[in-house]
């Protein structure tokens, strides 16, 4: 049946429409390459087999991809009169239930993700049915919120291999109108009104490109579709062709007519076999129906399409290289002018546009250019399809109005990366683009704003990266790619990129200097300004943007030989050691324990960490978060082991011999004196290393004893004070002098300290509670969390009431809650977010729950209600609900308007702490807005040369291990500053141990330390976590896979 005229087309449309909204159930399986890659073909086969076997009466169809790749395979079901329901992650096992729903006529919402009641195809509309209130409409689930489907309007809803379905939803009407009722000029005029810009990346106005070719007289003109989507990370063109090939054909035909080109070519990269296959079928069908041919759409305009497959060269995405490729030559770009519109393929005028540009054309002609400008921004109307991939929850294709912010895309649609990982950057535009750091996420996505950041929109690839991605490695990766894809013709690109790659490789191997960074920068600039084509010109962008926004990371690789993300293998021992803020040699002590050498294992931990027993109890265990054993079963409990080592040595009294050994190693006195302000974990650590290097060290603290938060903020059931006491005592034995009950800035000025000492280390921590400032917070019985914990530790806490409410869910709040519980109170913890978002240690949360502490989630404190006598009586809270994901990776709490009352006679506010650093102004030290002290990230020097700072005072509230890690780094920097010699490594003599890698994962499942029974622990402050037995510790140590053992690089 041919579509020789509009009447015939309308007849086909009418008939075919019943196929999309049939009188019997319609089950469609999404069959794009992703869907098939995830098992959609198996599901389809199972449905077909089930249909045959059971004889259920329904239509089984294949459709394209709806775009939510992370949830593939997607299967949609339309029961007559009901909405179209999409089921997600469908497997073979789900098929019987699906068939059952089809035959019974009732949809079960369990595996349904969303529904569509009516769909606007923009060239047509279909109403499926309403109902099923428990299933959310498609555009109310986070991934689709804010999306507007113009280009992807048909994808996933029609069968891409059936031309009649395209016609059914209104396809090909626009081209019929154009070819029969409009002039080429009128078509271009409509394109001008639409202000459509090229979607390949450069954003050149499409109407102008067409106009330039239209006016050229020639005996043959060509239109080409650039479907050589080579950008790694981008695959929207693939989906556009696989799911709706006729849209592309229609667009090209309209354009060809406007420009007078009678031949068209689609150049598809060979890596897209399904797209090629679907397009071939579509072209064949279009010929059969008379859309293409000597009388296209029954008009007098002849037009036909050829398909040419690429052969694996990224540079062929550049238009002159693409044409050379079609002509059977190597794809090497040519200088322009002459532009393709004048002299292109085979020397004839040629117009090349990207797939997505062509795909926008039919809908512009169908709805009008003016309609098109109603979406997007003034200078960039319309939508763009982006591929959102990488370290984000919802991956897939999103189509949004231009001008949408990155924040919306990453956090709202992508739903971020969870609370455990922090998103650092988004890489846009492939190897021609750049990395945009998270603090620029408010930037709207359009051609100009991305250009201003040094990135480009490019083809629309968006790769999300988190803290485990190394930005230097990202730059190196892209340069490696462009260097290998460079055609080699021009020197700046060919030589420049290979030299840049050599430098970047050097940086990732710790063999580069700061001068290399300068060379890299000047190379980038030369390559950008003098390369022949856009591949070279834009290849510098990844380097330039990462240098601009992440320079410190490059410097850390060069100056410290450190790769924080744990990617550049030559720069760290292993992921556990790299993630540990103190870089403890974890595989080392595990191996030593395995070999039965307890003393050596303990010595190893003590050298790296002055408070092994303490940290083994309270650490957040960053090491375990990256342990590779997790890919087998569960991470190795590394921290629990170094606690075991310390506890065992102390129990046996054997630590003394190690202590004596370390004391004997003390360097000769240097004659330099160092003052340390703050005797918490950071101060103690700095003191520990500096005194061993021979300096005279004095620690000043405003408390009566040292320890800081570890003594005054962490109750005994988590950290018995005897452990801390013993470990601090060793530091005293090493010769560190302590001056207590002295507040610097009050009892003694910082300027005096700075004058009297050769160096000063500020480690005052962040212990000042941030008050909540709600009405009634000055009533009696309202306390601040950290302050209260301190008072309790000093045995000076006022008696708490019977019903204690605590606002907050960090470690301070939980510690206060568990303390109050042990004192006999009924405890309620009030938190404004949900359980999954709690910042406290996971083990603390577990323990608190086991102790039956009541948690009220999604409740934000509104005001404190008094009893009429000036004392707290209750807390009024505002009930919250979960809103969109925010920059912390958690869902933002949003007020519902409903309030509630929580009765209490004592209220503790523990919602955060800050640094008190006013006293540093005394010597002119710079601080940031939130009070934290500014330091050089590599030397930890403040704005005053010989004054250093570290710990929470610099980072804001963080973990004890991180504070100690900074202090260790500062100690090294201070020693170098004072002596000019690199002596730090002498404090870490190597302890030899075996290096056999276990052939198979050993040791069995993860061991867990014993815990005191709940009933025994809630009445006293006895330690809850009892640690490992010897047997457990040995077994656990043998679970280590020894990933640190590497072959020597030749």
């Amino acid at each position: 049946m041919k579509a020789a005229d509009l009447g015939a087309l309308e007849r086909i449309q009418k008939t075919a429409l019943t196929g999309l909204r049939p009188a019997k159930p319609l089950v469609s399986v999404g069959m794009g390459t992703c869907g098939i890659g995830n098992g959609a073909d198996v599901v389809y086969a199972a449905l077909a087999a089930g249909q045959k076997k059971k004889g259920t009466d329904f239509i089984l169809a294949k459709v394209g991809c709806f775009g939510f790749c992370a949830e593939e395979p997607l299967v949609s079901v339309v029961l007559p009169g009901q909405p179209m329901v999409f089921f997600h992650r469908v497997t073979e096992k789900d098929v019987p239930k699906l068939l059952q729903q089809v035959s019974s006529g009732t949809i079960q919402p369990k595996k349904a993700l969303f529904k569509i009641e009516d769909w606007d195809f923009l060239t047509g509309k279909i109403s499926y049915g309403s109902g099923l209130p428990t299933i959310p409409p498609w555009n109310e689930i986070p991934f689709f919120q804010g999306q507007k489907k113009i280009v992807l309007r048909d994808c996933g809803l029609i069968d891409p291999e059936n031309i009649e379905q395209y016609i059914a939803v209104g396809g090909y009407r626009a081209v019929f109108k154009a070819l029969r009722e409009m002039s080429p000029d009128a078509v271009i005029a409509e394109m001008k009104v639409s202000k459509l810009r090229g979607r390949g990346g450069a954003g050149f106005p499409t109407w102008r490109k067409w106009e330039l070719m239209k006016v050229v007289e020639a005996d043959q003109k060509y239109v080409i579709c650039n479907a050589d989507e080579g950008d790694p990370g981008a695959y929207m063109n693939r989906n556009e062709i696989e799911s709706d090939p006729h849209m592309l054909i229609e667009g090209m035909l309209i354009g060809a007519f406007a420009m007078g080109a009678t031949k068209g070519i689609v150049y598809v990269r060979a890596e897209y076999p399904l797209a090629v296959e679907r397009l071939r079928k579509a072209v064949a069908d279009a010929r059969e129906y008379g859309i293409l041919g000597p009388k296209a759409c029954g008009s007098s305009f002849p037009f036909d399409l050829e398909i040419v497959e690429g052969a694996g060269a990224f540079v062929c995405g550049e238009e002159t290289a693409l044409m050379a490729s079609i002509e059977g030559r190597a794809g090497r770009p040519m200088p322009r002018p002459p532009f393709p519109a004048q002299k292109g393929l085979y020397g004839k005028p040629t117009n090349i546009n990207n797939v997505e540009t062509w795909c926008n054309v039919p809908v512009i002609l169908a709805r009008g250019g003016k309609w098109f400008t109603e979406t997007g921004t003034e200078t960039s109307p319309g939508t763009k399809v982006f591929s959102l991939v990488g370290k984000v929850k919802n991956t897939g294709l999103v189509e949004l109005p231009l001008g949408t912010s990155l924040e919306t895309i990453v956090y709202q649609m992508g739903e971020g990366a969870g609370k455990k990982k922090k998103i650092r950057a988004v890489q846009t535009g492939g190897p021609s683009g750049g990395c945009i750091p998270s603090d620029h996420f408010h930037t709207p996505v359009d051609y100009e704003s991305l250009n201003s950041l040094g990135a480009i929109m490019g083809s629309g690839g968006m790769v999300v990266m988190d803290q485990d991605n190394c930005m230097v490695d990202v730059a190196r990766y892209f340069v490696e790619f462009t260097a290998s894809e460079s055609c080699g013709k021009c020197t700046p690109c060919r030589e420049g990129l290979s030299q840049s790659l050599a430098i970047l490789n050097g940086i990732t191997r710790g063999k580069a200097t700061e001068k290399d960074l300068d060379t890299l920068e000047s190379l980038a600039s030369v390559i950008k300004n003098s390369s022949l084509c856009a591949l070279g010109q834009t290849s510098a962008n990844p380097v330039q943007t990462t240098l601009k926004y992440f320079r410190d990371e490059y410097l850390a690789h060069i100056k410290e030989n450190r790769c924080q993300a744990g990617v550049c293998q030559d720069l760290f021992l292993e992921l556990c050691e790299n993630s540990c803020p103190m870089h403890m040699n974890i595989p080392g002590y595990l191996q030593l324990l395995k070999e039965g050498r307890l003393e050596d294992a303990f010595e190893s931990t003590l050298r790296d960490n002055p408070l092994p027993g303490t940290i083994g109890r309270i650490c957040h265990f960053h090491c375990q978060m990256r342990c590779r054993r997790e890919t087998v079963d569960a991470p190795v409990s590394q921290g629990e082991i170094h606690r075991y080592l310390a506890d065992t040595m102390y129990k046996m009294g054997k630590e003394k011999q190690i202590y004596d050994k370390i004391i004997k190693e003390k360097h000769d006195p240097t004659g330099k004196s160092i003052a340390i302000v703050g005797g918490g974990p950071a101060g103690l650590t700095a003191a520990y290393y500096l005194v061993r290097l021979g300096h005279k060290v004095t620690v000043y603290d405003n408390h009566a004893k040292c320890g800081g938060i570890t003594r005054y903020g962490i109750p005994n059931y988590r950290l018995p004070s005897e452990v801390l006491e013993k470990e601090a005592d060793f530091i005293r034995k090493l010769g560190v002098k302590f001056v207590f009950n002295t507040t610097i800035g009050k009892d003694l000025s910082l300027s005096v300290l700075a004058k009297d000492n050769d160096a000063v280390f500020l480690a005052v921590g962040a212990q000042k509670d941030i008050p909540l400032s709600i009405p009634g917070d000055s009533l009696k019985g309202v306390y601040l969390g950290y302050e209260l914990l301190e008072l309790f530790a000093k045995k000076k806490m006022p008696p708490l009431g019977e019903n204690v409410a605590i606002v907050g869910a960090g470690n301070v709040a939980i510690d206060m809650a568990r303390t109050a519980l042990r004192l006999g109170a009924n405890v309620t913890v009030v938190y404004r977010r949900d359980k999954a978002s709690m910042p406290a240690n996971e083990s603390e949360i577990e323990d608190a729950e086991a102790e039956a502490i009541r948690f009220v989630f999604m409740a934000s404190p509104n005001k404190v209600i008094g009893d009429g006598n000036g004392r707290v009586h209750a807390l009024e809270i505002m009930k919250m609900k979960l809103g969109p994901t925010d920059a912390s990776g958690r869902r933002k709490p949003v007020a519902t308007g409903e309030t509630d009352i929580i009765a209490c006679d004592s209220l503790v506010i523990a919602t955060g702490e800050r640094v008190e650093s006013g006293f540093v102004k005394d010597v002119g030290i710079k601080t940031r807005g939130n009070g934290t002290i500014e330091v050089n990230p590599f030397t930890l020097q403040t704005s005053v040369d010989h004054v250093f700072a570290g710990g929470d005072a610099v980072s804001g509230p963080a973990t004890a291990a991180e504070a100690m890690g900074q202090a260790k780094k500062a100690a090294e920097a201070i020693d170098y500053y004072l002596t000019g010699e690199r002596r730090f490594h002498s404090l870490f003599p190597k302890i030899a141990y075996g290096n056999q890698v276990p052939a198979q994962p050993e040791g069995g499942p993860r061991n867990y330390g014993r815990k005191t029974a709940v009933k025994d622990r809630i009445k006293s402050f006895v330690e809850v976590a009892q640690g490992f037995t010897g047997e457990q510790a040995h077994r656990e140590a043998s679970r280590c896979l020894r990933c640190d053992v590497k072959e020597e690089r030749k």
Partner: protein
Amino acid sequence: MEKSLQMWVPEKKVDEMIGRFGGNPGALLGLLEEAQGQNRYRYLPKETLDYISKKTEIPLSQIYSVVTFYSFFNLKPQGEHSIVVCRGTACHTKGSKAILESVARLLGGSESLEEGEPSFTTPDNRFTLRTVACFGQCALSPVVSIDGVIHSNVTEGKLLKTLNRLMKGGKR
């Protein structure tokens, strides 16, 4: 290598292909791809290239320029099984480098890859390992194709299991 293996695609077949592609756009690329595909070892022996040059009257130097420029063309016999690891951005971000390295180690091609060779074929001709810049399956990264079948969300463990099975002569 035996002469019979070098010129596996019969001349008559090549003639037919040339006739089919004719002087159409992209003819040379398409012709070379098909000639390679029809070769049992999926490569283009010199004899085939010489023959094509003679029949199409395209200079051998141009044909040589094309087959060495485009990564799709193989001038050496390929292994029975082909393993292609995607090294696109999304796959790289999700750790495809480590996957590539572990497969290379398994097959004995680590040194070759380090030196920048685009592909590695085991001496017994059973496996060829290569990379592709991007399969366009980014939402399902990391992606590896084994004998043309795309596997998504690949982990080192799963992949090595599959490869070990293949090495022992099983099916994927």
